[in-house]
């Protein structure tokens, strides 16, 4: 299973911040893998087929976060912004960023 995380937007363009990060679950420790599975379940990734609209109407400078997962022939992704109400989505994003090589 491979997870990719990227973000875009903000008051200012920072090329570093927009670089995509990825992790493979086989590279994780048993504890981290368990954490990852818990975060995926809590975030709802893979449960909803549609992607959330990345830009709120009339907004400006909000950041959009994207997490995608591929597992064999299955793939899913989700997008959310700075005011996402489900904190598990941001936690999953942060996990991928922190564990990316």
């Amino acid at each position, binding site marked *: 299973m491979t997870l990719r995380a990227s973000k*875009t*937007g903000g*008051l200012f363009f920072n*090329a570093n911040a927009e670089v995509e990060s990825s992790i493979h679950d086989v590279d994780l420790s048993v504890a981290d893998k368990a954490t990852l599975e818990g975060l995926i379940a809590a975030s709802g990734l893979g449960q909803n087929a549609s992607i959330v609209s990345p830009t709120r109407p009339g907004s*400006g*400078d909000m950041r959009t976060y994207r997490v995608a997962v591929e597992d064999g022939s299955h793939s899913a992704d989700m997008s959310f912004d*700075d005011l996402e109400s489900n904190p598990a989505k941001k936690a999953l994003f942060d996990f991928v960023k922190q564990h990316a090589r």
Partner: protein
Amino acid sequence: MFPLIGQGHKKYYRKRYSLPDTYSYIITIDMCTQQRNPIYCIIPPHLLRHLAQSEDPKLRELALRTLSVDATVRLARATTSSDSVPANLQALAAGTAPAPKRSIYDNQHQASLVRNLVRTEGQPPVADQAVNQAFDGLGATFDFYWTIFRRNSIDNAGLPMDAYVHFQTGYDNAFWDGHEMVFGDGNGIIFTEFTGALDVIGHELTHGVTGNEANLKYLGQSGALNESISDVFGSMIKQYALKQTTATADWLIGKGILAKDINGVALRSMKAPGTAYDDPKLGGKDPQPANMANYLQTTQDNGGVHINSGIPNLAFYLVAAALGGNSWDEAGVIWYDTIRDKSLTSTATFSDFGRLTWKNAGHRYGSTSPQAQAVKDAWNQVGVVF
């Protein structure tokens, strides 16, 4: 002092809004900016703008009121199906300026918005600097829009202005979510508090103004125009507060919020796009182009909205520099007319916007005026043809 003409219009507005005579005739005079009928054009707008800065408070107020009716008439037209009197007209009729309605919330570093009200109108400064900066910044922004354009808040109808400070922990951003402003504290490595720059506060609030007027789609060229308009008005708000002319202003966006170890002066430079910083922590050199020849096609940043905005930013600077004085005297008026122009579509390109600024400069000052020529020259100089 101001000749009375255009009685038909006077009657119309008197009947509709029951305004005192004084204000009726002011409305009548200002029809010149709307209709281009020479019979109504006794005092040219640029002269009114000079009068608006007169030492004589009576003259200044009359000129300001006259100039303001451009916006007021549009609002009146938009509400002809309603019997309610627009807030601007009420304020003009009462001879009073509207007051801002500010509310500042301490978000306590939470990731979702927390309505923890810490300062509102009539309350003294608090110990928290970010709260006071946001409060004062919203006030300065409101003052600018009212004094220069007679715009009553974000929606031109007195909308309350809400701002949240201390969003998340070390959050390196500020944004407008379509309803309110949200400010992070910065992580201290790249940015410090985002409330520390008045132009950033003005930038965010102007996203609300643009959303209410042109609603430019936040993608590609229309998104870069949306961004540029926020920079243009954010910069003018700062210049107005600091009493800077086009010649003395720094034309930088976000000066003072970069952490001390960053090699740079600001987020963006309107006068010299691409020169604001050069630091690996920011991804290298400032990528803003100054000319269409260097327009960046990218999928990042919603199609480069904060990158390609350098092109219309420079166009505005060039117009302001060519016309001299204060940026809001003429260049700002042309840009404001343009974002309120019903011909401006939500998917406008740089060329569309440039053409409309030229058209509006012609309407205000005459199609062969130095102002219209300065607009045409500026867009040509940044490679935008129309």
